[in-house]
């Protein structure tokens, strides 16, 4: 390991450790409901971060990550039922299985340019949940499979709340995913992802294997979706097809866009928004006494508006827009009152 790599690893570990301490304090003080919300944010973060690597860093769009989360969730349910491994091993196996599924999709994806890939993954998102009905004996039809809730270790005390333990599991998963992805983005693979995103032909001339790079990005991101799906199954205690609709895939993409297409810090905001928005829109429609039809669709309408507005107004996402605004302020202060020439992007 070179010196630079060691510094990067140490820095990412330090960030994760600091975040871990913060989450430990937070989860120990807030209510059970808030702990469920934190757990939900944590698994959304894993999925959004994985999609961020694929879309933001590598320039591939997937509308099928909701379906890949389904693979992870069902794998967790099935493996957990069949063997008595520790939960971490079950989740790792589920992520691995989803990565293999991702390899199949990704191998096809490497030959598919932008819109083709989006269309193919759309077919995956629309078609995969129906398998639960086709193989209803094995996958439990529309009721899905139940997952036994994790039992907090006895050393934490008999009254340790289940929700806090679930939040810890989900946050641990999120932190591990963060460290791995942050390192990956700083490694040669990360540079290859971005090179291929920016200019495939230039990347090829520079010696990168374009197709292989795209497959690697897809597999990494699928593994994240699998882990996220597994965590979802652990937190909600169920893996059912109704949770993995096209809407979930769109929500994940909205999270990526909100987070600014390509930064892991942005993925945190994106994941938080995906949890808070539906809850806020429920509160809002409650306060305005809107009809249940409106209430049920308010968050979805907001996702749609975000996808349209961010691309039209701020193509770099909120994180990017914020960064640019701060940069501009900084610029102006540095240059004093000198007239500034408008620069083209």
């Amino acid at each position, binding site marked *: 390991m070179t010196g630079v790599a060691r510094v990067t690893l140490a820095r990412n570990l330090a960030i994760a450790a600091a975040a871990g301490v913060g989450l430990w304090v937070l989860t120990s003080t807030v209510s059970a409901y808030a702990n469920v919300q934190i757990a939900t944010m944590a698994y959304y973060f894993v999925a959004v971060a994985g999609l961020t690597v694929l879309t933001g860093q590598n320039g591939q769009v997937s509308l099928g990550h909701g379906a890949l989360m389904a693979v992870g969730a069902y794998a967790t349910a099935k493996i957990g039922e069949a063997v008595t491994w520790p939960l971490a091993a079950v989740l790792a196996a589920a992520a691995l299985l989803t990565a293999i599924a991702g390899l199949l999709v990704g191998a096809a994806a490497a030959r598919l340019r932008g819109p083709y890939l989006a*269309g193919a993954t759309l*077919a995956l998102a629309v*078609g995969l949940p129906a398998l639960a009905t086709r193989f209803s004996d094995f996958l439990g039809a529309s009721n899905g499979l139940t997952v036994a809730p994790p039992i907090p270790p006895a050393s934490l005390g008999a009254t340790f709340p289940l929700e806090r333990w679930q939040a810890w599991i989900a946050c641990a998963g999120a932190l591990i995913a963060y460290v791995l992805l942050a390192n990956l983005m700083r490694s040669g693979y990360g540079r290859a992802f971005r090179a291929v995103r920016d200019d495939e032909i230039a990347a090829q001339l520079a010696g990168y294997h374009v197709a292989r790079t795209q497959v690697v990005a897809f597999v990494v991101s699928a593994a994240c979706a699998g882990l996220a799906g597994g965590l979802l199954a652990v937190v909600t205690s169920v893996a059912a097809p109704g949770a993995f609709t096209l809407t979930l895939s769109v929500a994940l993409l909205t999270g990526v866009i909100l987070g600014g297409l390509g930064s892991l810090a942005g993925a945190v905001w994106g994941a938080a928004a995906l949890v808070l928005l539906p809850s806020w829109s429920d509160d809002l429609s409650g306060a305005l006494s809107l009809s249940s*039809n409106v209430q049920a669709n308010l968050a979805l309408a907001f996702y*749609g508006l975000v996808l349209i507005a961010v691309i039209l107004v701020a193509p770099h996402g909120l994180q990017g827009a914020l960064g640019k605004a701060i940069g501009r302020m900084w610029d102006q202060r540095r240059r004093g009152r000198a007239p500034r020439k408008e620069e083209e992007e």
Partner: protein
Amino acid sequence: MQRFVDLTLNGIANGAIYAAAALSLVLIWRATRILNFAQAGMLMFTTFIAWTVIDHGVSYWLGFLVALASGLAMGALVERTIVRRVEGAPPLNAIIVTLGILVLLQALAGMLWGSTPRSFPPAFSIRGYEIGGHAVLFSRFDLFTVLVVAAVMAGLVALFSWTSLGLRMRASAFEPEVARLLGVRVGDMFTVGWALASLVGSLAGVLVAPSVFVSPNSFDAILVFGFTAAVIGGLDSPSGAIVGGGLLGLALSYVSGYAGSETVTLGALAILVATLMVRPAGLFAGPRERRV
């Protein structure tokens, strides 16, 4: 054997609908190089409008016409207000924006009409013709479907081949800069293209509605089938879309008949991936270069 004949007939009728959906994607792709994911939402919305008209006791045919007219208007509106601003931008932007329109329309439809699936009446009887004492899987409504799609195709061919508007539209899609220099209002042509495409999409919506019921999400699969059919035909050629729709209709009818109807969408995915792996530019493409 009887079952095979039935599935084949059923496949032809479905194929006509997939062809219309494919055509609505191809018309837009040809003109603006945008894959319109919003199409599923647009045709869902116009079908809901038609359902409202019919549900109020007005005649089926008025509902049918209202669907087509609102499709025409919605296509032009969406292009003018939103899509215009991502034309020529990186493909990722157009994908995300059209996806956003899809989700927004689905949310609006959910707010207006709720998520309970509504039954949509067919124009004619859906009972199969009696041939030799057996009711085959082909009804008067299926015949109507095939004829309407054929008529629309003929109309489009006539428009593109023999009218000045068609010529200007082809010029704008083929070489926008040169067309502009020759005095063609390229922007307007794109708007007309979107309006026409959306009209064809709304036709597909009304034709498929009796079999899928009408709800905000019930047309997602039609988007997948339309895209697959369009890719089989090369995504670039309207006649390819028709042939692709027919082939896909037959293939999926057999998949549904022999492997279970839940596997149809995944069957479409398999066909899509296989097509893209073997002949990425569609079944009918000649050799072509990719510009650096």
